[in-house]
């Protein structure tokens, strides 16, 4: 446990050396909601029908913004491997008296806490400024969803960040992966409105599972067996990603 705390402390010290970065992280999702969300709200004034209910676009998009933010934090954290590698500290870390799992968990735990603060800022501002129908009684689900979501995406990206040693190649990978994951999911539009082939892809997309859980946690959309199944599927995705990440980082020079 002390090693996880040491990694978290290190992440904290690094994050707090740049207030601009921290500020951007905290408020970026809210800006998405205020600019992109309001724009779409105006364009689709009829709202969005999903999970048996009709919601304003901004209320619908709130979960999309949160999953996007959590994915963004995971990207930043995974990108940290390149920064650490450039600074030479990456391999030194791996000689410290901790397990590879402790290293990864410590790295993401602090950043998952950032994702939680981000979510709190975004959801509260959304409720206050945009009058979104937030389900405060489901806050616990939101906390768990946001932490596990950020961790899942970080573990998923870690394997690639360690294996792809060039940051320009990792950037390209991210652009493609993010593009496919984001647009073949329920981040921007409900599953019900998608054509069959795209719906099939979206249903198999972990970003859909994550977003749907967050949508349930924020506005109560969906729910029932499907959300439970999606949550379990995401936990499986997280576990596999974690095992692969630990395996990859165990022998980082072979990767």
């Amino acid at each position, binding site marked *: 446990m002390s*090693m996880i705390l040491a990694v978290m402390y*290190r992440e904290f010290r690094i994050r707090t050396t740049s207030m601009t970065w921290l500020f951007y992280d905290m408020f970026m999702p809210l800006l998405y909601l205020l600019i992109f969300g309001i724009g779409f709200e105006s364009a689709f004034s009829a709202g969005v029908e999903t999970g048996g209910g009709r919601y304003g676009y901004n209320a619908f998009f709130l979960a999309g913004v949160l999953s996007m933010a959590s994915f963004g934090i995971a990207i930043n954290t995974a990108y940290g491997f390149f920064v650490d590698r450039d600074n030479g500290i990456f*391999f030194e870390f791996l*000689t410290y008296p901790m397990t590879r799992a402790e290293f990864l968990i410590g790295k993401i735990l602090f950043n998952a806490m950032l994702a939680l603060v981000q979510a709190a800022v975004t959801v509260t501002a959304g409720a206050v400024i945009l009058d979104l129908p937030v389900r405060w009684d489901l806050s616990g689900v939101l906390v768990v969803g946001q932490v596990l979501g950020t961790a899942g995406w970080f573990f998923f990206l870690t394997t690639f960040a360690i294996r792809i040693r060039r940051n320009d190649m990792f950037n390209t990978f991210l652009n493609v992966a993010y593009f496919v994951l984001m647009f073949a999911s329920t981040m921007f539009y409900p599953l019900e409105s998608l054509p069959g082939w795209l719906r099939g892809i979206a249903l198999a997309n972990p970003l859909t599972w994550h977003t749907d859980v967050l949508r349930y946690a924020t506005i109560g959309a969906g729910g029932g067996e499907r959300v439970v199944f999606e949550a379990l599927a995401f936990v499986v995705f997280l576990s596999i990603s974690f095992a692969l990440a630990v395996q990859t980082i165990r022998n980082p020079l072979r990767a």
Partner: protein
Amino acid sequence: MVFRTLEIMNLNEKPAIHAVDLVKLYHPKSKHPVRALDNLNLEIAPGEIFGLLGRNGAGKTTLLRILTTLVRPTSGTAEVCGVDVVKEPYRVRQSICAVLQENAAEIFLSVLDNLSTYGRFHSIPSRKIRERAEMVMAQFGLDEYRNQKVIDLSGGLKRRVQVAKVFMVDKPVVFMDEATTGMDPVNKRATLDAIREHARQGRTILLTTHILQEAEELCDRIAIVDHGRCIATGDLQMIKSMVAKAYDISVTFERMRPEILETARKFPLLKIQSSHNTIELSVKGSDGSTFALLDALSKVEPIVHFEVTSASLEDVFLELLGNREESADNGGAS
């Protein structure tokens, strides 16, 4: 510096580092795998300062990477403090700290924060971290930079921060891969003094260096690595005696006579040169044969001045590696 008594005291009966038939192949599935280590054997006793010398690409860094659990060997075994690096890497990491070849520092953190963070990772109690950081900063001349971010420091200072970190902790085994590279002479001296001091307290230090004078000055024992094998291991005298050129002798006489050269040639000389009333000789042999030569010469003509120097480590290094290159060129095994 006062550190707690090291746990290695009860490890005295086993080597601090032990490698047996260590092989490391990079790209093992390709047509031409790189054999970075080739059945390397090594044994280092607790409390030793052990120098690993060799050309670039000889396998030194690969060996350090295996011993620090960064890389797994293809075959063979390696133990640190009696713990297998492949089977129990986590336990190995609890006994070591390392200065790797790459500059490694938290560039966005201050010097003090770098030391504090390192201390936390090595489980130093919070109340002790500051105390040790102050001590180490004073020792390495980092006091005036304590609040500066490492990104703003020169390359030499960054290296100093990196090296200073390992002296924050008191792990039984320290690995240093070209630790003094880029340091000015004053800080190089401070680093060498710190290494000596820590070895006196019982820590085992394995260092690689290209600065042979440094190894000569610091190491209890040395191994010369070439093509992934240890081609020579032992203390400095032993290593020096392995090469043909063991002693250089310069003798000045009152006057030069032909009998002097005739007498000298009766000994197993590798080289003899004369100029005016001085002769320069290279002798292979023990101290005894050197004295016998001087004694014989003094009976021929009174000696005004003489100087005996043993071959430097650099001579040994070049000769050992040069011989291997020649033997490889001639089709011999390398």
